[in-house]
């Protein structure tokens, strides 16, 4: 079984991207052999109120059993706590925030509050380091990338905080993992969408030094090809157990499913 934890639907503000509809995402999953996907609403990252994309996302996911919704919470807007509680009561298992896109300090008081609240209601918080290579971004796309220091700060807000970080590279992951206590790092999961395979073998190194338990299959599709993380795993010498953990086991355990 394969779960892609890093997918989106909806258009991207900065360039034309094919395959952004729910149907196209399904087709890409079929093409790449992906069974289920965690999905967020891509246009919402640039909206003044990203939470306005949540109803559409939840509706799209309600009609597609292979999708798990990852709605957005903007902790700088009034009454966001009620949005979070409502999502939790509606059965949402994970939420996301993109502080750089919201114009918030990544480890500022709003994000710290969000980390504490997600911990209190028992929901993991997903954040992306980036969506595109910084060298190709639109001249007006100046959203700050998520800094590693913010991940370390947020995981320390509450011993129940759980973070899922996407689009991080090897250096970022190592900085956070080895800059955290074993308890802290055990509450952070990383997708492999931005971790290089051979010949640099960054992912192989991380699996050796950190272990497979911390990693999730993620592609970043449709902004990036769905095939990439699978090709990455195909080029590695992984045990069947480790591959199964990365492809689905860790994600299922994180959301309390089996």
């Amino acid at each position, binding site marked *: 079984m394969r779960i892609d934890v890093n997918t989106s639907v909806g258009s991207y503000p900065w360039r*034309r991207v094919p395959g952004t509809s729910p149907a196209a995402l399904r087709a890409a999953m079929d093409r790449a052999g992906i069974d289920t996907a965690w999905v967020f609403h891509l246009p919402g990252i640039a909206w003044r109120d990203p939470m306005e994309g949540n109803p559409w996302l939840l509706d799209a996911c309600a009609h597609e059993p292979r999708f798990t919704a990852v709605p957005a919470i903007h902790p700088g807007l009034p009454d966001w706590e009620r949005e979070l509680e409502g999502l939790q009561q509606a059965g949402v298992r994970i939420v996301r925030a993109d502080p750089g896109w919201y114009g918030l300090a990544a480890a500022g008081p709003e994000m710290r509050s969000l980390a504490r609240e997600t911990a209190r209601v028992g929901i993991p918080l997903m954040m992306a380091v980036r969506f*595109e290579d910084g060298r190709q971004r639109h001249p007006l796309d100046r959203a700050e990338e998520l800094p590693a220091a913010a991940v370390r700060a947020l995981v320390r807000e509450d011993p129940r905080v759980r973070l899922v970080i996407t689009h991080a590279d090897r250096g970022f992951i190592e900085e956070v993992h080895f800059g955290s206590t074993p308890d802290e790092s055990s509450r952070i999961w990383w997708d492999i969408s931005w971790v*290089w395979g051979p*010949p640099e073998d960054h992912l192989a190194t991380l699996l050796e030094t950190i272990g497979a338990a911390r990693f999730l299959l993620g592609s970043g599709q449709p902004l*990036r090809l769905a*095939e990439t993380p699978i090709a990455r795993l195909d*080029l590695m010498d992984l045990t069947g157990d480790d591959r199964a953990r990365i492809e689905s086991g860790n994600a299922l355990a994180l959301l309390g499913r089996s």
Partner: protein
Amino acid sequence: MLIDVHVHFLHARSPRGDWQARNESRMRAAERIGITWQVSSILGTWGARSPIYFPSPADVSLANEVQREIVAQYPRQVRGYVVVNPNFTEHGLSEIVRGKAGGMIGLKLAASRRADDLMLDPFCAAAGQHGFPVLQHVWQHRRRDYPGQEASDAVELCRLARRHPTVAFILAHIGGGGDWLHSLREVRRAPNVFVDLSGSGVDGGMLERCLDAVGAERLLWGTDLTMDTGLAKLRYLERLLDAEALDCIRYRNAVAIFPAASFPES
């Protein structure tokens, strides 16, 4: 057949203590992917004794010699480009002659001098004499100068290509950083510029736009520093194209622009 037109090997004089492991990893991954031929270049001592993109003549000579040794070590898997630093004209031209005699099949221009600089002309003329294609390192839509390299973009490469219409040029790593949409707009009207698909970038829509811009007839498959992304792009193309178009990208275009008999069937 599958030809990787953008490959680098490390060596003992590079700063990397893990150079052998990286080279072995590349060969292992190549076998898994099914790469028949890897066309490689080495940029001096990779920064150990002179900058990667401004290698000294001594480091250029060393790197080209190591490249020839690697070809000799893997005669049925690896081919090589001659690397030059165009700021050293006589030295670079002599390296091309030495490389040709040693079995090299292409010229690699990195970022020692802007691609449209007239100083590159004698090197491109020499490449033309030997039937070498020219692989030019490109920063897709370079909006400013970056430290450590005198990088070029597609506009500059295409100016050079227009001055040498009988030479095939390879725009390096369309997925290797920068605004690839900008590059694709430029290369569509440069018939002797081919686009190498290597690089860590695996943007959705990039391959479709490459096909729109230059067609399967001017695309070359490659990996550069990330073979996993190369494999992902290949798998995507397999779903996108018919067998004939796919073969153009896998090897036919490369066979056409490198010297005859560079890639005998393994």
